[in-house]
């Protein structure tokens, strides 16, 4: 294939701005799929993706397109839309030379569009701004083109107006793809270097790698070497999704393809790795691979059910391992919680990522999960016995060392972009300031809309910030964020004591000013979840031994059924036995039985 006739590109868009519909329309226009075959959103293969209107896994589709008498090879590399998947986006974008930046012609530029466009700019991609949905009655292509120029710096006149729904503008867009987007750069050497930008597990063929060839060639029968992992495999199949899979014998520079190489588990593959040939290896890996940074953490435990004593941790381990290989950007480690038993502490790129992993575990693996509330990753500075300072990462308050030795706690700070209509500015400002936000700047978007820039600690964002924002803006405000640095603040560890006993699983890290309110909310929730006992139970929140909030669970004085006759025996017996089963799921701390639900309610997201 002539490298100059190859175009590798991604489509970047805000949720619901029509990315997948546009992709499908392009496939249709190139006759890659017949109208009959065209079901909505071919590229999104998971139910979850379709439901949420987002793409979780990048995938690549190759189509041929005649333009000016020449047959172009167009490789669509679909990217996850959300910045949580910045890592996946970056891998997919690395395989591209260009990007279509899709904006809804009635909604305008959203926060997410901005953040994703920045990513594309960082990768030096050529961008084509596309105004979609111009068929809608509310479409304002001219105004939105001005927004694109104002906010993203792409000339308004470069915008291509299309309707993915009706097909208007699609031929022009295909022309622009061929003419404006650059071909792949020439290979730097003839030693093969192929980027793995995605990998999936196929039940029949094992692991399928999604690849982009930079240098050299790759053929069926080649013995390949993963340069990072230092493993070798034999290529048994190379192919392209057109979108139907079509086998090819070999691929050359600039092309994308899938590769099957008798790789049994996804654990043998590292996404972002470079493939070379075993008998003629390249000298160095392709640049730009960065390991994903997990910012949000939570624990998953197998849910215990009444009839199943303790969930199946092995089943869960299998599922998580499988998923982790499918999604290289989340981490996991086995943990044991005194409250919830054995489970896994998982790290995610962000909140959405966490939700998606949880849903996939439940749906694809049929697991029943108990999920704890998310925490962020803190950097702490600890003074050792000899006075030396060491730094380490903590993402579970229970892992904090003795607070006497902690010199400093630093938390992740996010740069937050918020796009909203002007009438909501006051309320949203207040929300941001409430969440320890620092105002940075404000950008004029149009006569009715503004974009704000705040710096807000991630720990504050993960507490229902997005829900609050949606509530304040009648659902129209959009936000996106990225972590920019770690910063020290007045962060304290709040201990929770039940009947005088500290319960590590319930401790939390919070800002000193918010500690009392957070502690109180937590105690109130706890009080509702713990049954009365034969004795009074004090619930306390404390910072370093100083009590900052207190609640009390009154003792019950009486626990005896009035009537227990012949017909009551079975029902009553079951009731008492059920209590016992309930107790199996409880944790006894300071002779207080604490149900799992109590931990969950406390660990639940939100400030109540």
């Amino acid at each position, binding site marked *: 294939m002539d490298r100059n006739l190859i175009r590798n590109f991604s489509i970047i868009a805000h949720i619901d701005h029509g990315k997948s519909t546009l992709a499908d329309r392009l496939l249709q226009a190139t006759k890659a799929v017949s109208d009959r075959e065209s079901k909505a959103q071919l590229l999104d293969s998971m139910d979850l993706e379709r439901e949420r209107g987002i793409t979780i896994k990048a995938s690549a589709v190759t189509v041929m397109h005649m333009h000016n008498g020449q047959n172009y090879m167009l490789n669509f590399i679909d990217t996850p839309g959300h910045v949580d998947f910045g890592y996946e986006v970056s891998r997919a974008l690395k395989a591209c030379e260009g990007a279509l930046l899709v904006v809804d012609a009635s909604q305008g530029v959203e926060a997410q569009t901005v953040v994703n466009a920045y990513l594309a700019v960082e990768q030096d991609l050529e961008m084509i701004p596309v105004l979609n949905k111009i068929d809608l009655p509310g479409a304002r292509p001219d105004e939105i083109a001005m927004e694109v120029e104002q906010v993203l710096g792409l000339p308004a006149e470069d915008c291509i107006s299309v309707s993915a729904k009706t097909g208007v503008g699609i031929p022009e867009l295909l022309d622009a793809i061929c003419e404006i987007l650059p071909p792949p750069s020439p290979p730097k050497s003839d030693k093969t270097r192929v980027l793995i930008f995605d990998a999936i597990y196929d039940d029949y063929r094992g692991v399928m790698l999604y690849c982009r060839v930079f240098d050299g060639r790759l053929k069926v029968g080649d013995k390949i070497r993963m340069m990072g992992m230092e493993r070798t495999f034999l290529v048994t199949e190379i192919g392209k999704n057109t979108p139907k899979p079509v086998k090819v014998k070999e691929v050359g520079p600039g092309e994308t393809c899938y590769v099957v190489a008798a790789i049994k588990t996804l654990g043998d593959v590292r996404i972002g790795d470079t493939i070379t040939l075993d008998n003629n290896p390249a000298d160095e890996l392709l640049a730009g691979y960065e390991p994903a940074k997990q910012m949000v953490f939570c624990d998953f435990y197998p849910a215990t059910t009444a009839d199943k004593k303790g969930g199946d941790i092995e089943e869960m381990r299998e599922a998580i391992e499988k998923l982790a290989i499918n999604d290289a950007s989340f981490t996991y480690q086995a943990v044991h919680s005194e409250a919830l038993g054995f489970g896994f502490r998982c790290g995610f790129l962000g909140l959405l990522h966490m939700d998606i992993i949880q849903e996939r575990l439940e749906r694809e693996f049929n697991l029943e999960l108990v999920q704890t509330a998310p925490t962020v990753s803190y950097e702490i500075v600890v003074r050792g016995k000899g006075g030396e300072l060491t730094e380490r990462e903590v993402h579970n308050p229970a892992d904090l060392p003795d607070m006497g030795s902690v010199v400093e706690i630093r938390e992740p700070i996010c740069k937050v972009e918020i796009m909203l209509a002007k009438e909501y500015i006051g309320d949203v400002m207040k929300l941001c300031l409430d969440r320890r936000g620092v105002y940075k700047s404000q950008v004029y978007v149009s006569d009715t809309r503004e974009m704000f820039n705040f710096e807000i600690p991630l720990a504050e964002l993960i507490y229902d910030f997005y829900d609050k924002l949606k509530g304040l803006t009648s659902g129209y405000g959009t936000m996106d964020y990225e972590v920019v640095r770690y910063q020290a603040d007045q962060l304290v560890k709040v201990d929770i004591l039940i009947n005088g006993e500290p319960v590590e699983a319930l401790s939390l890290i919070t800002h000193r000013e918010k500690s009392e309110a957070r502690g109180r909310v937590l105690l109130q929730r706890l009080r509702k979840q713990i049954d009365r006992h*034969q004795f009074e139970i004090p619930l306390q929140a404390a910072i370093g031994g100083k009590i900052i909030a207190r609640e009390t669970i009154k003792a*019950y*004085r*009486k*626990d*005896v*059924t*009035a*009537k*227990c*006759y*012949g*017909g*009551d*025996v*079975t*029902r*009553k*017996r079951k009731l*008492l*036995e059920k*209590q*016992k089963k309930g*107790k199996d799921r409880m944790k006894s701390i300071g002779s207080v039985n604490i149900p799992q639900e109590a931990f969950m309610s406390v660990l639940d997201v939100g400030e109540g």
Partner: protein
Amino acid sequence: MPDNTVSIPIRQRPTQFAGQPLADCAPKTINSLYLHIPFCAHKCHYCDFYSLVDRQDRQEAFLNRLIEELRAVAPLAGPLDTVFVGGGTPTLLATHLWGRLGAALHQFFDICDETTEFTVECNPETASESLFHSLRHAGVNRLSVGMQSFNRTHLKTLEREHNPENVPRTFEQARCVGIANISGDLIFAIPGQTLDDWDQDLDQAMSLGLNHLSAYNLTYEPATAMTARLETGQFTPCPEELEIEMFNHAAARLANDNFERYEVSNYAQPGHACRHNLAYWRQHDWLACGPSASGHAAGHRWKNIGRLDTYLNNTQNGFAPITDHEEPDPARAVRESIMTGLRLAEGLDKSLVLLQSENALTGSAARLESEIRQANEEGLLTDTQSRLVLTERGILFADGLAGRLMTCVL
């Protein structure tokens, strides 16, 4: 004694009948019989027993079916030590039907006025001389009168429709026909009730010359009107502290009249404890007839299906359609005897329970012993004279403690 409602899927053809559990029983071995009469004039708001607001038109059909069932179970009955007719409101059954019921009972069973305790539950509002005559004629020698309270306001709160002034007359009429053995039911902890009110209820009850009294702490059973009213905030429930005061006051007040608390909610003068109920609590076997009646025999537990039309229209050699059948299970039997036995003043035979428990479930006796020791240390349980007996304080926590001990055999 009444049985609880069971909910069954409507119109589903029953597949199980009482003949199945009873097939394991040797003939002439069961000495107690419970009959359920499912008719009521009005459904009281605290009641969760199976009853139908009076359907005079169904009484005859019901009685025919009941007699058929009695005939079927009778071969398993030895000389009857106790018969208990509960409801519903058994005294709502027409006088002539009581005549037929009495005749049938005597035809099929060995009932003797001297040795059989034959109790009928009675709503004072339904009492009449002619009714009592037919009851007595049928062999009834003990009455359990649903008094609940003598205070009209509190009766109104319970939506219990009887005139408290009729209660003494009921006693007179019963005694007139020769039913001397009379028990009464009272309810305490009614919303708005004071300790004084409760004391007056106890006084009034005692003035009637009872020899047995059941005093029930009002319980908010699920799916009753009372519970619905509580949940919608239509009244403030009695504070727990006051409930306990009332509970303790009953014991103290009744002791003055030589009543002993022999079960959590039951008091009797010496020799007048209800033998039928003791049969339940001591895990004896009994036969059960009528819709929603629960039986226990040869380790089986079951319950007749509660819907009257299902009961009327389904029979298997006379046996009633049943539900909730539990096969014999020695460990379950031990748990059940712990649950009901602990509620009795006589308590449980410690070594017997330990033996049965170990036989049913290896290793359980040691667990049980350790739990008993702990309960003892907590002051909830004593084991003097080799019997496990709840302390005063232990009675208040009987459920939790029973649960703990039962857990050892689970």
